[in-house]
């Protein structure tokens, strides 16, 4: 039982898996070794017992189940192929849809700016090169001819202005009135946007004309930019537009050859209208505080103090009084950044009032009884009464200084009275610049009689 022979070779020998040499070796060994021979016999017996086990037949369920699964897989395979095809087709269609939309909207965006900004583009092009012979770029909606007409008239007007301003030798004979003419032309140029608005509005109101088609929805001109410089003229721009249809010759059809002359005529007519409007201005005209240039006033300016026992009340009182008589409070100038606070400017109001408006304002201010509107001289005696600190210095008796005020008022009364008589007669009242100082005092000056009554 201690044979050292490799017993695994016996298994190989039995299974016929040994090479020729190994096989011969095993045969020589087992011929002389009973132990290995016995082991070989036992290995064969065990193998034979297993080999003799009956073979089993596979049940039908195996083949049927496999066949069923194959058929189901085949259908799924086809379906998945179809689904894949459908998915690819859907993805392609979606991609095509997206691409088309992008192209459509990008083309729309490209066209839109040209349509909306066409007049601005035309003006910019004309100003940049007014003597250019090439026509301005045609806007996208030129097919109806509306903006094209406007562009052409704008270009021609600009060319006329430039030529005029160049001052040919013949025109130098009119050097004296030239500045006035230039001033008129400058004003006309400044008012050109509003004229265009007038022309546009007129064209809209004038109905369809073959030559000058009505302009629908022209872009709003930069008129507001020019308005603050001329408060009197800017405010009535809208009424001028409304009044334009009657006098303006715009509705008439203009052949293209006459556009230059007609444009000048339109400018002159528009200027005449604008100059005439201040006499019929509505009550809500605004006077700017510290305006660039004082508006022409028919009457000399007057200084007044609105005296209250509480400075905080005085501004509110003045605002309410102005609102009651239908006058808008002038807008204060924009506060400069990092500038020290100007209290005096905050408590000073400059208005343009007629005499009747002034009287009504005084009545409104003094109605509650806790404020007084005192007319003073140009050298305001009231303010010095407050001493070195101005409004915030030691306060002196105001009543004594207020006594001088009526004298100044009386001096102006005749003019005011004359104005009032004019008002009584129904003629437009002259206006004056009224500067209101808001002041605070422990005691109020005595109530003044109406200037008119003291006459």
């Amino acid at each position, binding site marked *: 039982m201690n044979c050292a022979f490799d017993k695994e070779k016996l298994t190989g020998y039995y299974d016929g898996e040994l090479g020729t040499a190994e096989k011969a070796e095993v045969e020589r060994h087992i011929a002389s070794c009973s132990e290995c021979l016995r082991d070989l016999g036992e290995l064969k017996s065990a193998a034979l017992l297993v080999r003799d086990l009956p073979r089993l037949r596979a049940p039908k369920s195996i*083949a049927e189940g496999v066949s069923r699964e194959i058929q189901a897989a085949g259908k799924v395979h086809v379906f998945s192929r179809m689904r894949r095809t459908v998915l690819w087709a859907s993805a392609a269609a979606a991609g095509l849809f997206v691409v088309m939309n992008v192209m459509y909207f990008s083309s729309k965006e490209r066209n839109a700016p040209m349509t909306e900004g066409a007049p601005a583009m035309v003006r910019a092009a004309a100003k940049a090169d007014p003597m250019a012979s090439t026509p301005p770029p045609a806007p996208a909606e030129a097919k109806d001819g509306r903006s094209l007409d406007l562009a052409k008239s704008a270009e021609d007007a600009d060319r006329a202005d430039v030529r005029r301003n160049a001052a040919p030798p013949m025109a130098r004979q009119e050097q004296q009135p030239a500045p006035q003419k230039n001033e008129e032309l400058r004003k006309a140029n400044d008012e050109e946007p509003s004229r265009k608005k007038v022309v546009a509005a007129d064209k809209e109101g004038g109905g369809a004309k073959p030559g000058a088609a009505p302009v629908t929805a022209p872009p709003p001109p930069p008129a507001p930019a020019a308005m603050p410089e001329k408060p009197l003229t800017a405010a009535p721009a809208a009424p001028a537009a409304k009044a334009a249809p009657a006098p303006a010759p715009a509705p008439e059809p203009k052949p293209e050859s006459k556009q230059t002359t007609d444009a000048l005529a339109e400018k002159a007519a528009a200027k005449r209208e604008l100059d005439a409007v201040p006499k019929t201005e509505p009550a809500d005209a605004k006077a700017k505080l510290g305006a660039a240039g004082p508006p022409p006033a028919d009457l000399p300016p007057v200084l007044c103090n609105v005296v209250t026992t509480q400075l905080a009340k005085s501004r509110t009182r003045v605002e309410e009084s102005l609102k009651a008589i239908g006058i808008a409070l002038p807008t204060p100038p924009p506060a400069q950044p990092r500038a020290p606070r100007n209290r005096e400017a905050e408590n000073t109001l400059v208005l343009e009032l007629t005499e009747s408006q002034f009287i009504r304002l005084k009545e409104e201010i003094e109605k509650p009884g806790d404020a007084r509107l005192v007319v003073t001289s140009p050298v305001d005696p009231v303010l010095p009464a407050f001493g070195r600190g101005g409004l915030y210095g030691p306060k002196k008796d105001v009543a004594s200084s207020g006594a001088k005020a009526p004298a100044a008022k009386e001096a102006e009364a005749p003019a005011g009275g004359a104005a009032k008589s004019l008002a009584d007669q129904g003629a437009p009242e002259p206006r004056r610049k009224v500067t209101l100082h808001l002041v605070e005092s422990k005691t109020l000056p005595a109530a003044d009689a109406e200037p008119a009554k003291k006459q």
Partner: protein
Amino acid sequence: MSPLDPQVPGPAAELRELPDRELVLRCQRNESRAFDELVGRHQDRVYSAVARFCGNAEDAADIVQRAFINAFRKIQEFKGDSAFSTWIYRIAFNQAISFRRENRRPTVSIYSKDDDKVVEPAVESNPTEKTESEETQKKVQQALDQLEEGDRQIIVLKDLQGHSYDEIAEIMQIPKGTVRSRLHRARLELKAKLKAYIGTLTEDAAS
């Protein structure tokens, strides 16, 4: 018609003439009937091996069916480096090992009185010998069930199925030298468990 059951429509006659390699190629071209032919060719042997390995007829049927279905699904991956039978055996035994590990349940004897399950009767004998034979087969099956999975598998593949060492090495994915040593050890184990019968058979085998 199917060679196993005339009632079941089987693959075409020409497919029966084709070798396994050609049938596999046709399967890879989505000819499902070719795979039906492959199933018909190999299902009995695979089922028998798996049944002896598992010791349970019902489990073996499920395992073999799954194995063929898996083989169909992976048919595109079969490169033809080995025989189809080797490949399907490997799949089946892997499936059986996984199944046995997941479902530990008492072994149901594969021996029944249903003679239809037996393809090749082991011994043609009289009823008495048949009874002794069945007893011996049961003992042998019981002894197989007591072996470790690896030993059992190699015994079934070699002694029951008659595969060569190369085929066993490919099915079990082990080196050829390992097959001989494992088989020798497995046979020694089986012999120890069948000691009561070996003595008698040894004398028969030796003669």
